[in-house]
Structure formats: C-alpha cells, structure tokens
C-alpha cells in the first residue's frame, strides 16, 4: 500500500516537472504549420549571434572556473587544515552571493570601476570581461566552495599533508600533487555547476553590456515565437549534459571507486 502511494507521489512529481518541459519542446517543433520540424532550431543555429554569444559565454565560463578553483581550493584546504574555527565565517561569506542580488554586485562594480574611477576597468572590453569573470566567480562561489569542501571531507587532509611534508614536499607540491588530484571530482562538479550558472546568467552581462548568451536568449525571447523554446531546450540539454559529465567523471576516476559509488 505505502509502496503504491510512494510510486504515485513519484509519478505526480515527474509529471509536474516534465509536462511543462514536454509542452515547451513540443511547441519548439511547431514552427512549420501542421507538421513537426526542426525549423526553429535551424533558425537558431543559423544565427551568427548564437554562436558568437555562446562561444563568448563558454570562454568566460572557462575563466570563471579557473578563478574559482584557484581561489576556492587553497582557501577551503587552508580553512580545514589550519583555521577550523574560521569555518562558520568562511561558509557565511561564501553564502553571501545567494543573498545579495547580482544587480547589486554589478552596480557596485560600475560605481567602483567606471571610466572616471581610480581603476577604470569598464573602459575597455578586456577590463569589462575581467569584471564579469569576477562577478561570475562570486555567483558560483557558494556552489564551488561547497563542492570542494565536501570533497576535502572525504580525505584526511591533515595526515596526508603531514605525510607529504615528511617526504619533503612543499606547499605547492602538496596542493598540486596531493590535494587537487584527490578533490578533482568535487572540483569538476563545482566546475560544471559554474558552467551552468555562467551560460544562463543575464543581469551582469546585460548591465556590463557584454555579448553573452544570457542577454541573447532574452533578446530572442522578447522578439520571436518559436525560437525561444528551442533555445530553452538547448539550454536544458547543456545543463543535463553537464550533469551527465559530472557522473561520468566520478565513475571514471579509478581511486574513487573505493568509495562505493
């Protein structure tokens, strides 16, 4: 009886989430009258701006991941190793981006780094890209930090560090050869989450006036009928692809198998 009830609830949940998606996917295939076609997708893919904005966002996502890893892995490691009493504080800081709206951050950036400021980053495309990357890294911080911190929890950070030190390793060797490889799966899941966030981000890119994927989606959505759902399906495919990659990577890494996944 409970079993049937559980399955019933599960199916209801599935319908609740899947029906809108199905409706959207179905609508995206209806551009041609009276028959299903991929016309909407063809239009989207034929649009030069799609590829330009997609590539741009992908590149920024890559840089954001690099910045995030360089910032978060040593920090999380150091907090675990030497400053466990600072953990609540650091966790609080990493959660701030969830509470502070992106628009506040970006307005702060524009105020601090505008062309008449001491550091006119918004004066050049490169400077603005740098600002945008930092903004994205901030937005991704809660996810990146949590992923890495969870990864660090599965290894005995203190003893491994001491073992490496007793074998003559310095901090850089310890980071690159002991800590990073052992939290690689966690870092990758953080990286994929970052990718998903950056690909869909609108506010920052729009206000900094950069040709990112988010503003392009918004532009299409405001002006066309069948292409927006096609874009949404593509965006979902990217996100799910990322999740699949996350699973795949954690399966493929040999020493992770011991943890019974």
């Amino acid at each position: 009886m409970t079993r049937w009830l559980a399955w019933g609830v599960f199916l209801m949940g599935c319908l609740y989430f899947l029906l809108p998606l199905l409706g959207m996917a179905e609508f995206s295939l209806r551009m041609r009258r009276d028959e299903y076609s991929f016309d909407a997708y063809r239009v989207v893919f034929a649009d030069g701006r799609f590829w330009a904005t997609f590539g741009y966002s992908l590149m920024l996502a890559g840089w954001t991941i690099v910045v995030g890893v360089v910032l978060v892995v040593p920090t999380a490691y150091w907090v675990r190793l030497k400053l466990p009493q600072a953990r609540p504080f650091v966790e609080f800081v990493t959660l701030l981006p969830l509470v502070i709206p992106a628009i506040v951050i970006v307005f702060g950036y524009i105020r601090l780094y505008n062309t008449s400021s001491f550091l006119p980053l918004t004066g050049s495309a490169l400077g603005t890209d740098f600002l945008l990357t930092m903004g994205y890294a901030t937005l991704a911080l809660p996810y990146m930090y949590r992923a890495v911190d969870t990864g660090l929890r599965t290894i005995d950070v203190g003893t491994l560090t001491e073992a490496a030190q007793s074998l003559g390793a310095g901090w850089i060797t310890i980071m690159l050869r002991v800590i990073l490889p052992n939290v690689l799966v966690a870092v990758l899941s953080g990286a994929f989450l970052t990718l998903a966030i950056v690909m869909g981000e609108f506010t920052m890119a729009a206000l900094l006036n950069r040709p990112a994927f988010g503003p392009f989606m918004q532009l299409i959505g405001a002006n066309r009928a069948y292409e927006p759902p096609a874009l949404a399906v593509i965006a979902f495919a990217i996100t799910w692809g990322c999740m699949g990659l996350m699973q795949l990577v954690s399966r493929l890494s040999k020493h992770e198998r011991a943890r019974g996944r």
Partner: protein
Amino acid sequence: MSFLTIANLEKSFGTIRVVKDFNLSVDKGEFISLLGPSGCGKTTVLRMVAGFEVPTSGSIRIDGQEVTGLRANARNIGMMFQAYALFPNLTVADNVAFGLRVKGVGRAEREARVAEMLALIGLPELGARYPFQLSGGQQQRVALARALAPRPRVLLLDEPLSALDAKVRVSLRNEIRAIQRELGITTIFVTHDQEEALSISDRIVVMNGGIAEQVGTPFDIYNHPRTRFVANFVGTLNTFEAVVEVPASGIVRIGEQAMRLAEPVEAPRGAAIALALRPEALRLGRAEGREVVLEGTVREVHFLGSVIRVTADVAGTRVALDTFNRADTPPPAVGTTTEVSLSARDFIPLA
C-alpha cells in the same frame, strides 16, 4: 656522540604544559619506544621531532644539525602514521616514489629504488595497485616503504600498529623491527601498548604527564621500575603492604611473616612501604629457592593456553600469579585454599 639529541624540550598549548623538560639521546641505529597512556605527551614529542609542532623551548639535533627551527619538509625524516595516510590517488609504486620525485631523483634510479623497497616489504607484485585495493597490513607496509624510500635520517612511527587487528599487529611489528635492523635506521616508535614496546625496542622511554619517568632497556624497565607509575603501567603488578623492621639490612614484615629484601630499605623502622611483585615471581605451592610461603585462597582461574593466570587472596591482598601449563597438573579449583611461595629478593620496592 649520540645521533639524535633532544634537550630540555618543552611544549605548551595555551596554559597546558604537554611536554616538560624532556631529554633523550638516541644512538645511530637504535630503536627507541615512547610508551605511555594517552595524553602523556609521547605523540607531541614525536611530532616535534618531525617538525609538525614547534617546541615552546628546548632543542632537537639530528646528526649534529640543529633542526629545531627547520620546517618539516627540510628535515629528511620518514614517518608512519596510525591512519596509513597513503595518497589515495596514487598507485602503490607512485606512493613509494613520492619522496624520490620530490627530491628530483631520476626516473631510472627512482624505479630501481621503488622495486627495492617493495621487495623489502615483501609486496613486489603490488606496485600497480591502488591503496584501497590493499588490506590494512599491506597499506601500512607500503607506508613503511614510502617513508624509507628517500633514505631518511630518522624513522618516526606514530602508533602505526593501532589500527590493525591483533595477528597482523604482531607479524608487522616483527617485520618493522627486522627491516629497521637490516637498514640500521634510527627509529622512534610511539605506542601505548606495553607489550609492543617491550618486544621490539632497544630502549623504552616511559612517559607520564609530559615527563620521561624512566629510560631503559625493556629488561630494565620491567624488572627495575623506578617509579610506581612505571611499575604499574608496564606489566601486571601485585602490591603488598609491608612494615619495615630493620631498614639497613632490608628486613620487612608482611602480615606475620618477616623476610629479607635484596636491598636495604630507605624508610625508617616501623614505616609502611609498598612492595610489588610480578605475577611470574609467585608460584603455586612450595618451590625450591622461594623461602617465603603464604596461605591463599584461589579466586579466579584463567586458562590462557601456555600460561595459566590465577588470582588469589594472599595476606589480605588480591594477587595475580602466572604458572606454566603442564599436561599432568590441572589448574586449581576456584575457592580452594593453597600455598603460594615467593622469594623476597624478587620484591620491587615502590617509591
């Protein structure tokens, strides 16, 4: 000139003094055990030698070099941990090669050294495995190979056997000792297990409350404990209350029985002193050379195989005594009255 010298070492965490004025000289190739209950400071001493803790004061010298201010990775020491601490992302061979790689040893030499080390620990076939594919005992042996590969000056063992089951513990400790002898490497071994310390050490440092209570060979520590703590912590002990009769000639009285100890007593006539006796110094029944015979009642009998441990009430105290198993003599029954004989020279006066 000793190889490793620890002088006036002190360590405080906040207001708590964990290690107090610790001094130790270790010769080259010596196997030293730091033995004591948890919280006695033995691990802290080891971690200061390793460079993981900074001493509050005092000095540590290895091979004539002052290392007190040196970082851990510059000390050239090998260390084994209770939790194995193998790098989970590296194969066994890569784990063993880690220290060599850090040192910048060339590939050919590195591979030769790794093969040599794996042969030394008796696991030459397992180089390609990952740590999680090994048993605890195998992992700890790999940890030993990893620690030894870069030819450290000193080997530090931080309770490396505690996480293993009893049988592996005994075989691995013998193996560690054999390898240590073969390589002639100076070793400090931290343990809370007195049997472990007694069986493999050249010398033992018994620690209590951050102080080295006694330093000596296992034979010395066991047979001539200098403090009550050492006597109690190392081995099982029976304690008798005795009254001093003639201090200069060491004559005391237990109950009604007067006896002469091996040495003069440092207490005045009429004072009560505590005398200790190892279980194996007591004998059930009368025996030659054991002039003191006391009446006793058998309370418990534990048949352990080669040894039978009997608990009896003798002269108002409960004592444990060990007898060897003999196929023709069954152990006494619980509740029976028996005679217990001993030699007064075996008594250890407790300070």
